[in-house]
């Protein structure tokens, strides 16, 4: 007996991102033009197919959704006008909200470090970002040589720049963090 295809994931993604993944007819242009496809566990057209099949668990824990660099080459070339990078955003956000095991934990840590820095200073400060990411990912000794070059070239400023209206930032993070990923 043929079971009905599970459309729940496709519908959830459409509600979130406005993208109609059902329109994908597997021309594979997205995968052909993707600069990061060589490193992915599922290439973009496979992600689209698995969305159509409702393979939520596999998708939320795959590496691909994190490796996608959001260059949007796929989105601009899709003959069915699916914003594939937007679908990747939707899947990433769902993975965080559902607490799925991340296919690329270090990329998750990077985003957390990046946004954490903005939450407390309102701006992106390279030493704060790099420090937070190194501490979280325990990759303490990566890039020491580069770090020295960056300091010598004044690419790293000692004092972080901070937004005066810290309350506004706190409000934004409090309000947007309700019921979702931080």
């Amino acid at each position, binding site marked *: 007996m043929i079971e009905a295809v599970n459309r729940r994931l496709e519908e959830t993604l459409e509600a979130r991102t406005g993208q109609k993944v059902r329109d994908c007819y597997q021309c594979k242009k997205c995968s052909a033009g993707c600069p990061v496809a060589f490193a992915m566990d599922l290439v973009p057209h496979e992600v689209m197919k698995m969305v159509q099949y409702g393979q939520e668990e596999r998708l939320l824990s795959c590496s691909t959704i994190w490796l996608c660099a959001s260059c949007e080459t796929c989105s601009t070339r899709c003959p069915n006008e699916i914003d594939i990078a937007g679908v990747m955003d939707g899947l990433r956000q769902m993975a965080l909200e559902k607490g799925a095991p991340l296919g690329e934990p270090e990329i998750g840590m990077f985003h957390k470090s990046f946004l954490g820095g903005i939450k407390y200073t309102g701006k992106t400060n390279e030493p704060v970002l790099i420090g937070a990411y190194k501490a979280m990912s325990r990759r303490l000794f*990566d890039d020491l*040589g580069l770090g020295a070059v960056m300091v010598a070239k004044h690419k790293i400023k000692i004092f972080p720049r901070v937004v005066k209206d810290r309350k506004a930032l706190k409000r934004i993070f409090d309000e947007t963090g309700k019921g979702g990923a931080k």
Partner: protein
Amino acid sequence: MSRLSFSYFPGCSQSGSAEEFGDSTLAVCKALGIDLEELPDWSCCGASSGHMTNDLLSLALPGRDLALAKTIGKDMLVVCAACYSRMKVSQNRILADEELARRVEEAVGADPRFTGEIRHLLDVLVNDVGIAAIKPWLRESLAGLKAVPYYGCLLVRPPEVCCCDSVENPTELDTFLEALGVEVRPWSFKTDCCGGSLSLSRTDIVEKLVNKLFERAEEAGANCIVTACPMCTANLEMRQEPGKFGFKLLHDMPVMYFTELLGLAMGLAGSEKWFKSHIISPVPLLKELKLTS
């Protein structure tokens, strides 16, 4: 032509790792009579990490800056391609969806419905100021520089919100460089991704993308790469070689901002300082071509 006047969103990199981009932007705008009013107490746009992890946050962070721009009331100028993209995408979505606009307003505590234009400096220079009006300001031709124009992703995609004339083969930066006397070398990698958002977390992937760009630029006969994005420049300059403990440069082709070259061609004071702060120093090349002392 009436005097151009904008509110200005500098973006975090332009006072951090891409200070030379920020400084050269201010210098060329001042020299060309483009008035810039910095948004008071602006904050970060959230960049890729915002939209990849939390949709509402990715609109509320630029939303705060859009609310500031609304108060000033002028069109907004942005130079960082990443900030530019976030501002434009957020503005589009906020203005197109009133329910969403209300949610952003609630999060920000101010009205984010900024209806002015958000412009990238390259677009303003080519299309508003115009090449013909820039030419009389040029003191020296940058002849000898052979550049590949590197647009990257966020200046051109998504094309519905971005400013370039073509999504696969944009030409604004080409036109601009030619006006400065730079020889523009043809290559097919104008809009290829450098892997910006993976720079710290998956350096191995980024190195492959960056090395390819340098190899193709060399193949195209260029002696420099010109960019309009601080993420692209940072990646190209710093992500060439596995850098566990040491730091080596596999490719020593300089990577410069379009604003720096304009400043140099206009003979603006301070350009030496910009070029000195690059990880891959363009100074030997500029000296060899007698473009700097």
